[in-house]
Every structure is written in C-alpha cells, then in structure tokens.
C-alpha cells in the first residue's frame, strides 16, 4: 500500500514534467553531428604504423583527434571562444601534442591516445611569435616558445620552465622565428624591416647568449612569410621585387651578408603580383632540415629545388600544380603534388624528395565537387608498405571547408563538411509528395480541369486511382522481396529520389546557410546531407537572410527559396534563388540591386505561379518587388495602401514606419526616436508569420474569459543603457505597433544589463537579462490582454484598436546562464508552449511556459487552483529530465530553430552551434499518437475475444430461450 502511495505521489509530481526520453528512445528520432571548424593545423600520428590518429586544431578554438580511417572524432576539446582560446601553434612528438593557446598565454601538452591533459604551464605575458621543438643528440627534450620580447624553454615531459631570457633590442627588432638543428643551440631570428636581420644564438642548457649578429637585408619586410631554413642551418629567403633567392649560413662567422641568387639563373620567374612561398621540411626536430624545398612561383606553379654546396639546383618543375606538401615516414621523405587533370579532377602524385623522381603507381585521382570550392590545403600521411615502398593517403581541404580523405587510387575514405560548424541561419521545408501523390493532387488543382467536363474527369480520376493501385502493389512486392533477403543487405540509403513526405510530415528538408557561403540541404530524419552548394565570392562579413517564397504545396511548380546575401559594410545585396529540395539554382531572372538594402518584407500576396512576393527596400526607400510580373504589380497597386513596413536605425535610435504607394515608392508615416545618449536599440523582433494561436483568451477561475491582445504587427524592441554602471544600467523593453508606431507598452528593467535574449510570440514576450545588482540571470515575462471583452472579435486592425492592452509582468531567477532562447511551434497552436533554452553547458532545456506566467499568484486561492496556476516562486526550477538532448550536448549552441510538424503534438527542433542536434519535442506529450509500446496484440485479442464471446453467448441465449419455451 505504501509502495502504491509513493508511486502515486511520484507520478503526480511528474504530471507536469514527464518529458524526458526513455532509454530505448535514444537516437530514435534525434541525431547529433559534431564539427570542429576550419582546420588550421593538422598532423598525422606517424609514431607507429598502425596509428589512426589525426590531430587537428581549428579556427573555432577546437583541438581534436580524428580517426583517419572513418573520419569520426576520437576526442575533442572545445576551448573558450575569441582570442582567449585561440590556438597559436600545434607541435607533435611521439605520443605528446604540445599546444600554445591564447596568444601565448598557456602551454599545454596533451596525451594523444585518450586526449588527456598531461601538463599545463602559464606563460609570461607577451604576444606569441613562434614555437618549436628543440632536440639534443637525436632526442627531442624541450619546447621553445618565442614571444615578442622573450624566449622560454620548457621541458617536454613535465612542462617546467628550464629558462626564460629577454631578447636583446626587442623594441626595435621583430623576432619572428626559432630554429634548432639539434646541435645544442637555439637560434632566434628577428628582422628590422627594410634594414637587417638579427640572429641570436642561445645555449640550450642555461640560455646563455653564445653569439649575436646582424646581417644586411634592406629588401626584407617579414622573415616569417619569405624565409625558410634548409639543409644544415641555411637561411633561405625569396624576394619578388629583386626576383632572387638569398642564402645565409646561420652559424658561420665569416659570411656577413646574404648571397643573392637571381631566379633568372635558374630559368625561373615569379608571376607579378604573387608573393612566392618557400616550403621546407624538418622531419626530426633534433636534426637539421632537408636540403630540398619547394618554391611556389604562381598559384599553380611549384618547383622542387635542392640546396647543395652553396648552390641551388632544380630537381623537378611542377607546372601546373595547385598544391605541394612534404611527408616523412621513417627515414624517407616524399613530396605529394596535386596537379590538375581535367576540369573536374585533379591527380595527386608522390615524388621522392631527394631526387624528384616519381614513385610508380602512386596516383590518386581527386574529383572536385562541381558544387564545392577549390582545394586549398593538402595534408599527406605517408607510411611504409610491407615491401618497403612508400604508400600514402591525403587529406584535402577546400575553400568551402570540406575535408576529404583519399587513398589510392582515388577512393574517398571519408568526408567532413566543416562549414556546418558555423551555421548562420536555417529553414525547414516540407518534402514534396511522391510522383503518384502529386499526380492525384494535381488532377484537381489545374485550371484546365474545370473546362474538361464530367466524363474526362471521371476517366482521369480512374486512371490516377489505377496508378495509385499500381504503386501500392509495387510497394507490397518490394516489401515481400526485401523480407526474403537477409536483413543486413537491406540498406536504408537516403537519396533525393526516394525522399517524399511521410504520413505526419515529420521528415523535412533542413536548409542550412553557413558563414562560409555554403548551403546545405539535410534530411531532418537521418542528418544525411542531400545536397550542397558553395556560393563563391561571399565576403566574410556577409549577412544572410533565407526566405521561403513557395513551399512544396503548389505542384507542379517547384518549391522556391531565396537567399539574400548582404555585405555588412556596403549594405549591397544580391539574391540567390534555388530549389530547396534539390539545391539547384533557379533559372528565374533576379532583379539587380544597385543600392544598399535596408529591409525585406515577405508578403502574403502571391503571383500566378504561387510564389509569395518579396519586397526589398533600399536606402532611398524605393521598393523592388520580386517576382515583379505584371500580375504582381497589379496586386501591389490594389493593396498598396495596406502594406506597411518599418525600419530600424540603431545608430540614431530611430524607428520609422512607411507605407507603400501605388507607384512602389513609399511615404514616411510615423517616427519614434530613442535618444542614443541614454540607450541604444539592441534588437527588434516581430512575431513569426507561421504562428497560429488557437485560443483567443484564457478561462479564468470564475468562468469569465480574459482575452489575449493578439496584435500580429507588434514589435518588441529591446534597448540597453549606454551607462554601464551597475547601479544605473538598465534594460528597456518597448512594444511598438509596427503599423501605427504606437507605443503599446514601455518598461524599464533597472539594474540590469545584457546580453538580452528574448522570444516574442502570441501575446507574450519573455526576455532574459543579467541582474547586475544580484549578479544573476533573470527571466521576465510580459503578457498582454485586451480585458474581459474584445474590442472587435472578428478581425484585428492596428488602425482600429483604441484601447491600450492590460500588461502583466513577472520576473523569476534563472539559476544558469543561457546562450539562446526559442519557443516551440506547432501546427495549430493547440499544444501548450514550451521555451527551449540553450545553455552554455550544451544542454537544451525545455521549460514549460506554465512556469512563466505573470498570473502566478502569491497566495493560492480557490480561483487560481481552478485555473491551474502554479503559486509564485521566485526561482525557476531546472530539472534534469527537461533536458531534451540528454547527454548529447550541443557545443556553443548559438541558435535553436523550431518548426511545426503534421502532428499537432510534435514540434521539430534543431539546435545549432559548433554541433547540430535535431530532435522532436512534445510539449503536451503525445496526445495524438499511440505509444511505441502500445499492445496491439492484446487489444485485438480482447476485441476478438469479446466478439466471439457475444456470438457464443447469443447462441446459448437462443438455445436457452428455446428450451424455456418448450418447457
């Protein structure tokens, strides 16, 4: 009995909250993909032949190890964002990887097999210049770190500092590189631009300066970009102006100036405007570098040269060749060179470094993705085969941040799309119907059908029904056929051809726009990338806006999406129109946008091809319509007086409203100016266009109705004070009607500052701010009500709502910092709403809106109980079972996207940041779906049982009646 009561109590307490997944539901309708970002350093573990490790450090401050056979992550360390976690250098020796982090702030050593931290040393301040491994007598024992004004030497096994020395004349000399050839000395090379080079020799044991000399080099501006050390300590530099190479033995006392070798004497020439690049290799830090090196003379011209006895001799000319790289396995060093083969493919060949001879049968064909970028980095992993020949694999990084790992003869072992580590914006689009479904739909949709008459319509109907029957039979046959085959051979490959809308529209196409300008179409069910498109010439500071102009609902017209790409500095924009299902660029002519774009507006007006009209407003307040057919322009003229839009100029604190005129010019109709001396506008948000609100009001405890103020034109404007003093700083929230410019509500949250995250939906705004007095995050909710009666219940017009709404507000403490905030969205808006909170820990919290209700009472009364209001508690609870992504944390979650599905109970969620996580949430649980473990057998057997029981008992009753009658 007690057990029962306890069970009851637990289930009661979970009444609100049961939203966690069961163990067997893990991965059933959710998936996560982890990314690392743009690779800056990549090293293969050559320690042992069987090693599969690939160490990578990226511009997202991620240090990771990949399995080079599968491309999966072994482990990943995500450091702080920004310069604090910036990875300056990655060095590897044996099992250890040494990383310099945060502009030379930290020196860390990682154990590469499990990714454990071995040691960490805090370095002295000073901007980082270079780091190098230092070996003595064929054994690498130290790591040297060069800062702007000091050099320090650390023990490789413990990280302890051996010595640190200040650099001589560090205010005039720019020290840039370290060189050590394993002879007991560390050489620091510095340059005084356009004057001379400084070379300082330090003794490894105690840091004593052994020698210091300066060499004339008037042509040199930077050591780092134009020089390399080859052979036994020869500094080799290249200069494109004098078209020559310069050599200097670093440790010889007699030679006091650089020797000039004209490139002409080698029959070489640098293409004008190209900065030549020298690439040398030092396979073992305890030994001097090889005497062979690459010289790149133009973007597609490399040459392998050898330095011997003071002379430079070309070994092999690679023209054309895009990329070249050295790799070492054991004692043998090879060079891999990528040359163009034809328009779509490149061939990679292996050459022996010391002779320049080509290794036989080493060609790898690399097929370039026509929708991708050009290759720009080549990483080679060389290994010795059983027959002592050198084998190799390569990793190619392209401009669009795709990593491709290839092995002979050109098989793609794996591929990673690292552009997805930086998703900027996304949309979800319904999948199209299958051909047969579409046929059926299209049959009645066409206008021709009206003219057809009765008989052809019947025939058409019959024929389409026949097609359906055929498709069904084919499906059955396939099922039967598949069932006979062993399970393993049945593959569920997802391709574009087999994609079609499922019964409940749970599977959708995710369109993702990344910062690098690559677009992706991803199947939401499995996470498979179905198409990708790299847009070239995207400025790094571009902003994107993705607009769905036509959904898949208008067969036979293909769905259409438009991407507005806008340069942040100039404001100039361009449009890219494509089909979201197949990723193909649309042939529709796009209007030229010669002027900066200020605002876009997607109208519900559709053209004759069912595409929604997009209005683009430029800086002269002229409007461009897209598409701009005659039909559209006619419709725009008819409805011009009811098309309003707003502009925000946060630099002047100005919000202004405009109305469209018939000639597509605009007129200013309202203006609100928030003085920038006091506060600045940080964000403006309207409501989502595809949001539905099911109930117009809330039923109160006394059975009266409190009507919601559902203004679709309402804008929430968030401001932050310019005064950042913790007592005087504030966050302002202003609700403005976007049509009339009427300030509906204005509130100030005192002693608060940003960053503010907020959601604006239905009749409420929820925002999160930092309370600078109590040093905590707080949630605040604003709800707007019209009152006990509606002003005009049939239609809402901003122009005719004279009475201001009642505003209720309440605040709560939230015991965690947050990264992002979004609200769930469902098909009809019947399901209760949840807020999805992205936490820095990587968890996504599904917080019931029930807890954020300004009508939560202080004291529980009969009426509040009737209304199901939770009594007010100042602290918002965080429960582990509210985390929708259990242990699948999303690193650096930046945005959450929600989309309704065909099921009212289900909302699709995509969280993106460094990782991408897709799942479904059921804010009111799955009230319209049978449970997974629903016992079909039991219910059907009970049904049948009852059926037969009634049959039998009926028969028995008849017999009994008959017997009684005879009696």
């Amino acid at each position, binding site marked *: *009995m*007690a057990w029962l*009561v306890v069970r009851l109590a637990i289930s009661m307490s979970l009444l609100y909250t049961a939203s966690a997944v069961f163990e067997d539901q893990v991965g059933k309708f959710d998936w996560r993909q982890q990314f690392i970002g743009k690779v800056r350093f990549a090293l293969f573990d050559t320690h042992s032949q069987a090693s599969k490790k690939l160490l990578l450090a990226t511009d997202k401050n991620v240090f990771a190890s990949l399995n080079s056979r599968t491309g999966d992550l072994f482990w990943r360390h995500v450091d702080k964002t920004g310069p604090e976690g910036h990875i300056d250098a990655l060095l590897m020796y044996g099992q250890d990887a040494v990383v310099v982090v945060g502009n030379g702030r930290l020196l860390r050593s990682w154990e590469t097999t499990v990714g454990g931290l071995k040691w960490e040393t805090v370095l002295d301040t000073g901007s980082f210049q270079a780091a190098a491994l230092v070996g003595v007598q064929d054994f690498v024992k130290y790591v040297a770190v060069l800062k702007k004004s000091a050099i320090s030497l650390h023990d490789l096994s413990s990280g302890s500092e051996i010595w640190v020395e200040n650099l001589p004349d560090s205010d005039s000399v720019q020290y840039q590189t370290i060189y050590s050839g394993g002879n007991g000395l560390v050489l620091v090379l510095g340059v005084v631009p356009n004057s001379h080079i400084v070379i300082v020799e330090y003794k490894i044991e105690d840091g004593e300066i052994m020698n210091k000399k300066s060499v004339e080099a008037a042509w040199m501006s930077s050591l780092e970009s134009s020089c390399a050390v080859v052979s036994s300590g020869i500094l080799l530099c290249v200069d494109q102006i004098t078209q020559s190479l310069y050599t200097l033995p670093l440790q010889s006392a007699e030679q006091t100036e650089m020797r000039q070798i004209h490139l002409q004497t080698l029959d070489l020439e640098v293409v004008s405007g190209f900065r030549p690049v020298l690439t040398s290799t030092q396979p073992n830090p305890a030994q001097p570098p090889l005497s062979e090196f690459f010289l790149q003379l133009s973007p597609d011209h490399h040459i392998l040269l050898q330095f011997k006895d003071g002379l430079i001799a070309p070994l092999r000319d690679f023209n054309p060749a895009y990329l070249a790289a050295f790799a070492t396995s054991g004692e043998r060093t090879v060079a891999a060179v990528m040359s163009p083969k034809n328009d779509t493919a490149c061939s990679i060949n292996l050459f022996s470094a010391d002779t320049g001879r080509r290794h036989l049968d080493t060609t790898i064909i690399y097929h370039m993705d026509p929708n991708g970028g050009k290759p720009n980095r080549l990483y080679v992993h060389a290994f010795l085969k059983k027959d002592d020949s050198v084998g190799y694999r390569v990793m190619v990084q392209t401009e669009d941040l795709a990593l491709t790992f290839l092995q002979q003869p050109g098989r793609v072992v794996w591929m990673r799309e690292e552009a997805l580590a930086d998703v900027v914006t996304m949309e979800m689009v319904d999948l199209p119907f299958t051909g047969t479904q579409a046929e059926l739909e299209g049959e009645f949709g066409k206008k021709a059908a009206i003219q057809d008459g009765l008989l052809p319509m019947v025939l058409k109907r019959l024929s389409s029904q026949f097609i359906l029957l055929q498709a069904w039979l084919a499906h059955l046959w396939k099922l039967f056929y598949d069932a006979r085959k062993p399970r393993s051979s049945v593959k569920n490959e997802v391709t574009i051809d087999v994609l079609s809308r499922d019964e409940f529209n749970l599977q959708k196409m995710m369109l993702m726009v990344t910062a690098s300008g690559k677009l992706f179409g991803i199947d939401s069910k499995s996470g498979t990338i179905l198409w990708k498109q790299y847009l070239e010439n995207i400025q790094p500071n571009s902003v994107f806006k993705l607009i769905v102009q036509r959904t898949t609902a208008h067969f036979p017209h293909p769905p259409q999406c438009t991407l507005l790409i806008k340069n942040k500095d100039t404001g100039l924009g361009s449009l890219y129109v494509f089909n979201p299902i197949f990723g193909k660029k649309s042939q529709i002519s796009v209007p030229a946008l010669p002027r900066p774009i200020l605002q876009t507006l997607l109208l519900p007006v559709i053209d004759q091809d069912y595409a929604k009209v997009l209005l683009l407003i430029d800086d002269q307040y002229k409007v461009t319509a897209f598409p701009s057919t005659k039909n559209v322009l006619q419709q725009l003229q008819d409805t011009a*007086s009811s098309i309003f839009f707003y502009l925000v100029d946060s630099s002047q604190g100005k919000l202004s409203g405009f109305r469209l005129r018939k000639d597509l010019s605009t*007129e*200013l*109709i*309202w*203006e*609100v*100016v*928030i*003085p920038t001396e*006091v*506060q600045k506008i940080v964000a403006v948000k309207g409501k989502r266009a595809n949001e539905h609100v099911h109930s117009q009001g809330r039923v109160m405890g006394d059975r009266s109705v409190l009507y919601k103020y559902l203004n679709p034109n309402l804008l929430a404007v968030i401001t932050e004070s310019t005064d950042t003093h913790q007592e*005087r700083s*504030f966050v*302002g*929230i*202003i609700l*403005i009607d976007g049509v*009339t*410019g*009427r*300030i509906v*509500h*204005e*509130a*100030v*949250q*005192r002693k608060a500052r940003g960053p503010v995250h907020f959601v604006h939906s239905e009749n409420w705004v929820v925002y999160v701010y930092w*309370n600078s007095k109590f040093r905590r995050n*707080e949630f*605040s909710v604003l709800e707007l009500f019209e009152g006990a009666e509606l002003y*005009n219940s049939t239609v809402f017009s901003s*122009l*005719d*709502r*004279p009475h201001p709404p009642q505003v209720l*507000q*309440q*605040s*709560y*403490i939230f015991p965690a910092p947050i990264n992002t905030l979004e609200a769930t969205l469902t098909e009809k808006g019947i399901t209760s709403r949840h807020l999805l909170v992205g936490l820095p820990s990587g968890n996504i919290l599904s917080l019931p809106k029930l807890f954020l209700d300004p009508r939560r009472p*202080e*004291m529980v009364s009969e009426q509040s109980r009737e209304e199901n209001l939770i009594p*007010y*508690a*100042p*602290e918002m609870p965080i429960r582990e079972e509210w985390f929708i992504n259990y242990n699948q944390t999303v690193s650096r979650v930046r945005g959450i996207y929600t989309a309704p599905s065909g099921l009212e109970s289900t909302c699709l969620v995509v969280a993106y940041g460094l990782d991408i996580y897709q799942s479904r949430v059921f804010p009111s649980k799955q009230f319209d779906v049978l449970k997974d473990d629903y016992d079909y057998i039991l219910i059907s057997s009970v049904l049948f049982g009852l059926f037969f029981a009634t049959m039998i008992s009926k028969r028995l009753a008849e017999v009994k009646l008959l017997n009684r009658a005879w009696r």
Partner: protein
Amino acid sequence: MAMIRVLSLVLSVLSSVTLLWTQSGECNNGRRSADAVDTDFSGFSVPLEHSFEVDDVPRFRLRGALQFRGGREQGVYLSQNQLSEKDRNTLKDVAAVDGLYRIRVPRVSLQVDRQTEKQSEGYLTTFVRACSLVESHLSDVITLHTDVSGCVVGISIVTIPGSCRGIEVEDEVDLEVFNTTISVVAPVTAPVPETAPYIERMEQEMEKKGKNPQEQKSFFAKYWMYIVPLVLFLMMSGAQDQSGGGAGGGAANGGGR
C-alpha cells in the same frame, strides 16, 4: 469676415486634460530639489502640428500648443484652436479618399533644466486615418511617451471610436472643436523576482505547521484509523470473493446441466 476671425480667436478653446504624469525617481537624478525651487514658472510649451492633405503630401500646420508644467504638480495641457471652415472641408475631403491625418511634435526633453542644455532636432510623427477622426467627431487621445530621462521618444494618436464605417457627419457642430485627451506616459519599472515576500510566506507556513503539530503528522499517522479497517475489509472481501467465486462457478456449472 475679420469680425468672425476675431470671434473665433476669442472663442479658441482650451481643451485640456491632465493625466498620470508618472515621474520616476531616476528621471530626476537628484534634481528634484532644484525643480522644487522654480515652481510655477518653469513650464514651457511645444507646438503640436498637424497635416491632412488630399494629395497626401504632408504640410504641417499648427494645431495647438502643448504646455508642460514643471514643478510639483507636473502635467501637460493642450491649448488648441478650432478648425476653420476650410480645414473642415479639407478634412472631410481627405476622409473621403481615406487619407491620413498626421500629427507631429518636436523632439524635446521634459526635464525642464535640460531644455537649455540641448535642443535635439527632428520630429516625432504619427498618424490616424482621417475618416476615423471625422467619424469620432474629433475626439482623440494623444499620448506622449518618454524614456527614463524624460525625453519624448514617441507620440501616438487614437480616436474613440477608432473605426471607419462611412457614417455621414453633420458639419459645423461636430467638426469644430477637438475633444482631446492628452497624457504623458513614462516607462514603468519592470518587477524583479520577489524573494522577500516568498520567504516570508514560507516562514509563515512553517510557523503555522509548527503551531499546529497535528498537521506535521504524515498521511498515515493521521488517517491510520481509516486506512487499516479499509485494508482489512478489502483483504477479507478479496478472500471471500475468491472462495465465493469458486462456489458460484460450481453452482453455475451445476445449473447448466
């Protein structure tokens, strides 16, 4: 004619309503004492302009003057002229073509001592449909919104009723005098989490429990006298059911034969 004009000037109406001047403490920034010194004569006035044109190109004319009173009893008054006959006709014409009736005020700070500091340029504008103004017989509500420092950031106008139903309006009587309600609204201070009352409430509840030891007892301790007999009864009846069921079954079988 001149006579009439003079008359209309004489008859110019001072329609004014004072409303909530919710001055917040922060807004004054310790200048409260200074304000209190210059009492009644610290007020100033700002022009309120309006524009209604058939061609919908704004040409603003003076409608009235907004007079702000500083000092202790702060408020805003609007003194405005009657509409001339020409204006009335224009307004009706504009209403007929569904034009806009716009108003604007210059950007000002309501902090009296800041008046001299800086005069920010530019206007704040808003509009209402001319037809709704006509149909409401010139009864409008104008609200000035200020920010925390007392600067006017926005102006809004609504008419009551706000709809346009195409009702014919009698001339002269209804369209001469504005019936305006004017108010200044400062931002409200948003609530912060209320921990103190909550803790108080919890303490009260604890006290109540402490006072009343009866309530501290657990569910079982309180109701054992009901539960035990119930359980016993259920157990007994369950046992009886089993035996009774068996017996009944046997009887039924017997009956069947």
